[in-house]
């Protein structure tokens, strides 16, 4: 079977600094893969390389068998690669509903139309409302995003990515910045994601990682340190040294 997402020998340098070193990673369809590692390990750089924000110095990225290394971000997104951002990237001055409609419109290619009114396609609005309903956001549909508490904005962020109907989804610290009383809202959504979507989650919180992931890759200093199942990672002495110890220290 072709992997949903396959990364081969990926390298990226900023000047003399090698932030990504020979990274290999493969996500099968429906994968639940976690990427962990200490601060500065190059996790976000790797996400940026996968989504096309950055171009690699060498190596390839393949989406469902197609080499997408040279593709733009938008082309990758249209082919089924979606992401959420570590810090919310939403249309803050627009309503929650408009945020969703924008995503659906761009996904379906409606946004080339200059003549019809944006509200004329009832199906788009209905889909947007369905998606908001699934995340219990309908009551906030007409609020501006910037008026919502951060935790709710975080849900909108996920709703946006899901509205792209992705086959590969990258979640960059989905619970970051959310008050601990509300993290369960995010985690429930993450836990109930469509089993066909391949998901790569980047997370600091070990509880989240061990609860959610079936495979874990540990990134240290830009290179893959070790890969394995949650049990293997948990019981690995070296991982405890470089990472888990530190995490406990923070926690």
């Amino acid at each position: 079977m072709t992997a949903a997402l396959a990364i081969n020998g990926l390298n990226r340098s900023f000047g003399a600094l090698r932030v990504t070193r020979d990274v290999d990673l493969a996500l099968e369809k429906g994968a639940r893969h976690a990427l962990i590692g200490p601060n500065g390990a190059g996790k976000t750089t790797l996400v940026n390389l996968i989504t096309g924000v950055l171009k690699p110095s060498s190596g390839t990225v393949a989406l469902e068998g197609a080499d997408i290394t040279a593709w733009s971000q938008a082309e990758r997104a249209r082919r089924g690669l979606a992401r959420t951002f570590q810090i919310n990237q939403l249309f803050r001055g627009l309503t929650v509903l408009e945020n969703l409609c924008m995503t659906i419109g761009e996904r379906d290619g409606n946004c080339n139309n200059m003549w019809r009114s944006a509200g004329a396609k009832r199906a788009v609005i209905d889909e947007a409302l369905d998606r908001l309903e699934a995340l219990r956001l309908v009551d906030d549909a007409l609020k501006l995003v910037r008026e919502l508490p951060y935790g709710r904005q975080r849900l909108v962020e996920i709703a946006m990515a899901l509205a792209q109907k992705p086959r590969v989804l990258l979640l960059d610290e989905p619970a970051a910045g959310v008050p601990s009383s509300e993290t369960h809202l995010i985690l429930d959504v993450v836990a109930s994601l469509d089993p066909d979507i391949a998901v790569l989650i980047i997370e600091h919180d070990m509880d989240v990682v061990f609860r959610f992931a079936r495979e874990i890759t540990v990134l240290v200093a830009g290179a893959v340190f070790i890969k394995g199942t949650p049990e293997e990672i948990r019981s690995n002495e070296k991982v405890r040294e470089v990472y888990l110890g530190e995490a406990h220290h923070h926690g």
Partner: protein
Amino acid sequence: MAASETTTAGEAARARAAEYLLRRHYVRWPEALPWLIAVACFFVFPDRMTFGSQVLIMVMFALSLDLILGYAGIIALGHAAFFGLGAYTVALASLKLGWSEPVSGVIAAGIVAGVVGIVAGWFILRYRGLTLLMLTIAFGAMLQEAGNIRSDFTGGYDGLPGLTFDPLLGHFQYDLYGHTAYWYALGVLAVVFFFVRRIVYSPFGQALTGIRENVRRMHSIGSPVHRRLVTVYAISAGIAGMAGALFTQTNAYVTLTVFDFDASAKVMVMLILGGTGRLYGAFVGAAVYMVFEDKLSKMSPTFWQFGIGLMLVLAVMFASRGLLGLAETAWRRIAKRSAP
């Protein structure tokens, strides 16, 4: 029972939300106001119609800028380049080719400016922020200097005087009072405005506001951002070119000063004064600015710019979202106070 209640509440919320999007583009009665005022002005100030048509032309120019600045968030300080291109298109077409029919001239000017907008936009819209700002200024200066080098052709800063244009629609002569010019400008503005309004409320227009609000997100949801920006830039350039064509036709005269940095800056000031991203800001801003300029320069031919400066300082201090933004805030306050 509780379950059915929440469903109804949920359905009501859904319906409300859907209604909002379905009705957002409906025409509301206050929108008739600027047009009624424009028509009324013809009857109240019949001897000021030459000035009136210049105001309408600036409204159209400001409207073109609103499309890129207010909606797509492109900060451009060289939009006079396209105004000037349109102005020279009709001037040269009349002088060198004998093409003096006004309406087709305006359309041709729009096309010329639009095509140049595509080419220029394709290069400069790869950049954002201050870099983009500098590039738009440089582009305007380049066109002006090119016209200066070939002043044998363009008339340079002495201009191309004594241009003649055919009667409007083969029937209406341009009169000394500018009556024909006024209706002509108002007619073209109305047509252009109709198109701009459609664009703004279309899915394409929504995508532009998305680019303004968060370009990173637009990339990540698969929007071809560069293509969208070049498209709207070209449309905006075309409208600016049409405004320039009207300028030449109604004045029967054009010089290279139409490309001045001053002109680009002035139209941006007008738009910000009126309020960006709301279409009618162009009307309010251009009208208020030009009437003030006219009155002040008559009151004090030496110090009138002080008055303009003072007005702008006050606007920035007390109306940072423009005069329309100020009116909106005031209206909300009144509505809140009168609500029980």
